[in-house]
């Protein structure tokens, strides 16, 4: 990686007008060339291919495919369930982050310490590292009617594997770390003095929490929820294994795309793919805005 600074600015200064296009291109630092060429080949051209493929259909046709009853049912399962899972992780992830930052619960027996807290902290990254097929396999087994957890729920008439509830469990698993890992550093950097000041001014613990701790934390929690949601919406591997993939029951949009492709219905797959891609882009925008909102509190 070259680091000579004057020739590395991009776009380069065009000193001579006689320079040919080739010479201009040759002046662009090669690190830039690698970045843009790789992004182009891997990301931009494929996205363009998808949008142009969708555009070959007439607008009415696009609308008809995108809003067909089966597609609408998959949006319902995908987006509603992903929202539910993301909010669930929003609540429990915030509690987890709080517990990990504020409390010390490593078990000390004499000189020996059982690092429960450190273990929990490290294990929270497992959903990121565990391949989704593995996740799906084990969740489907645990939550099946004769699985370790499923057999306890079955007498109450609660079926998890092969139902929409199973989709929710899988989505919750794979989006578990987002809220914790987003909130944790913010909570860590938050100064205890402000809280103590609030206490000494006579605020109750509850007031301190709502008026002092929660407001700067809220955008961060929302960012984590949005990250979890956007991951859950796109999830395929774990859901396809735990769900029965029956239309109108627990079929999610990514699985519908897959099924369309298996039937060589490229237009159908593409239109639903574009819907999902647009949702991802909107979520990315929301996350960026939320992060900007959260940064407002970074007064140092």
């Amino acid at each position, binding site marked *: *990686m*070259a*680091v000579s*600074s004057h020739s590395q600015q*991009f776009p380069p200064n065009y000193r001579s007008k006689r320079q040919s296009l080739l010479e201009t291109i040759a002046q662009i630092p090669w*690190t*830039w060339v*690698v970045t843009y060429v*790789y*992004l182009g080949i*891997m*990301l931009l051209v*494929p996205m363009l291919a*998808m949008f142009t493929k969708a555009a070959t259909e007439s607008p009415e046709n696009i609308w008809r495919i995108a809003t067909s009853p089966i597609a609408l049912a998959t949006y319902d399962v995908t987006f509603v369930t992903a929202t539910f899972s993301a909010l669930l992780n929003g609540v*429990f992830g915030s*509690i*987890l982050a709080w517990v990990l930052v*504020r*409390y010390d619960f*490593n078990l000390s027996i004499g000189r020996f310490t059982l*690092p429960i*807290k*450190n273990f*929990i902290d490290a294990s*929270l*990254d*497992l959903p990121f*590292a*565990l*391949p989704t*097929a*593995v996740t799906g*396999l*084990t*969740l*489907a*087994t*645990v939550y099946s009617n004769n699985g*370790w957890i499923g057999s306890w729920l079955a007498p109450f008439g609660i079926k998890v594997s092969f139902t929409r509830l199973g989709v929710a*469990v899988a989505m*919750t*698993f794979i989006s578990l770390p987002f809220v914790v*890992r987003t909130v944790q*550093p913010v909570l*860590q950097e938050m100064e205890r003095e402000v809280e103590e000041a609030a206490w000494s001014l006579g605020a109750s613990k509850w007031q301190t929490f709502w008026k002092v701790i929660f407001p700067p934390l809220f955008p961060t929690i929302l960012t984590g929820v949005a*990250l979890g949601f*956007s*991951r859950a919406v*796109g999830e*395929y*591997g774990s859901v396809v294994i735990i769900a029965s993939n029956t239309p109108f029951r627990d079929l999610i949009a990514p699985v519908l*795309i897959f099924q369309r*492709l298996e039937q060589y219905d490229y237009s159908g*797959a*593409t239109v639903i*793919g574009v819907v999902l*891609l647009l949702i*991802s882009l909107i*979520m*990315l925008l929301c996350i960026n805005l939320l992060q900007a909102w959260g940064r407002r509190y970074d007064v140092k």
Partner: protein
Amino acid sequence: MTLSEKTDPSAKKQRNWAATILIGISIIYLLFILYIPTLNLFYFAFRNGIGPFFANMTTPAFLHAAWLTFILSVITLPLNTIFGLCAAWAIARNQFPGRAFLLSLIDLPFSISPVVAGLMIILLYGRQGWFGEFLQEQGIRVVFAFPGIVLATAFVSMPFVAREVIPVLEEMGKEQEEAAKTLGANGWQIFWRVTLPHIRWGVLYGLILTNARAMGEFGAVAVVSGNIRGRTQSLPLFIEDAYKQYETQAAFSAAVLLALLAVVTVILKEILERRTHSNRRTH
């Protein structure tokens, strides 16, 4: 233990019923979502003993899947590392309009559904795709063949190295690089002797995450591979296939192998995080 750095020493004294309840809720939540399922995985893989576990590891389908997964990682890692380093350098060392946009662009593969990623590859290189006809004339198969799987894997693991290196590069600043330059070092020398030693843990961290994702990717690979046993089936695909064929033992044996990879990833990640003393970063 580096605990004292993380927690307030007075925290213990303040522990009250609220703390107990919150810790309890956290542990119960994690038990149901994370720990019991993970334990279950190891139980099912080994419940008939070690014998059947290893017996499954010698079937041709499994061996091929494991080999394919390994090769995928070997090809994807250098590709994404070169890209990641170039992109990180371009973003961290330059101010230009559209910087935030480029950063979002690099993040995009994380938010795109893997199935949509696979779909895009089919629309480009498939029989009816943009380059489909040209490739067919050359006799090259991309979709339902190895090159397609490589593309899909590289796509989903693209951002990791760049994401991890950018903050380290920014934190480092460019003074030392400029000093080396005034002393007459060339670009490569500066990179090897000044920049790389600073960012090596960030790069390593990115590599570990790239590797975990590359070996574990399921959705994108499933779309483009055609899922042919012994030919285009990676380990995650093998797991699903075996599970659907009621070869539960085979599925769990393969799953445990990938789970161990995940555990190693998490442990290495923890070690690297302590070494760099940096705040936890999100993905």
